[in-house]
């Protein structure tokens, strides 16, 4: 008997859904890091040069 969905599909759906959440969280982290770094005038590249204009 052919079924529309199989247990295998459920597993894949769960995995893809989880991966989607992880990717969204990653985007959120990169966004948050950008806000903190730019807002705080921190040294984004670790070069020792700080963007002092950002805080003005």
């Amino acid at each position, binding site marked *: 008997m052919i079924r529309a969905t199989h247990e*295998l599909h459920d*597993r*894949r759906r*769960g*995995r893809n859904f*989880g*991966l989607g959440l992880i990717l969204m969280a990653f985007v959120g*982290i990169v966004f*948050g*890091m950008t806000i*903190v770094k730019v807002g*705080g005038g*921190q*040294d*984004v*590249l*670790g070069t020792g040069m700080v963007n002092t204009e950002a805080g003005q």
Partner: protein
Amino acid sequence: MTDTSLHTSAQEPSRSTEPELKDYFALLKPRVMSLVVFTALVGLLVAPVPVHPFIVFTSVLFIAIGGGASGALNMWWDADIDRIMRRTQKRPIPAGKVNAGEALGLGLALSGLSVMMLALASNIFAGALLAFTIFFYVVIYTMWLKRWTPQNIVIGGAAGAFPPMIGWAVATGGVSIESVLMFSLIFIWTPPHFWSLALFMKSDYDEAKVPMLTVTHGHDATRRHILGYTILLAACSLGLVFTSIGGPAYLATALVMNFRFLVGAWKVFKRSTAQAEADADGEEKRFFKLSLWYLFLHFTALLVDAALRGLGLWGGFA
């Protein structure tokens, strides 16, 4: 991660089911990750340089992911002996849930990602230190030392000792006596911790032909080594008291826990194999459990002292 495989061999059994996300998560050794998170967080928070809470969160997250990546690479390389040892038979690769090639791909991808993101979140030195830690654990320990020398645990323990040093580097951008001593604390703690485990998990390492000290030099030599390292550990632990991160909570913890740990190591040292077999390794199991508390309480005490300093309740011994 689903249909492609970077590494397949004739001996490798194909996975029996479609893997779930939790199977990939299990490749990252979550229990080891929790120790990495805790010690890295302490290393970061006790540092004298304040760090933005979001950077603390992301840095510790990427240190944990780096630790997890090295765990996945360890499972990829050690899949053959993981199938033999009882303790590791349920890991995703020997259990047939994930292919070895998938573990390799996941480990490499997360290694690169974590190092790059930590360098961006904090500084390049911290990122480089994380990269070195992954290299040390995977290449130096897993691929080289683990199956070659009974000192595998001693040198390999360095990989697990780096996280507080990385945490400190995130905040300060460098290395200092405090971070070196936090590293040393875990580094010297690792041999007695693992050798006490090996004393009562002996058949596992025997069958997998891993040259654990208990296998190559016998139990009496292992007991002597445990005592020797515990004495060294006490000196290292008390040394931290006199640095800028030591305080009353740490002093009290170090005194109590080192006394208990030394007594435990002495009891293990005085026993013969026959005595250990008679009570099903009771003393060895107690010592192993105590070793877990030892490290946890030391790092918790460092955190308490940092909080006391932050509240202005403690100004240091100097």
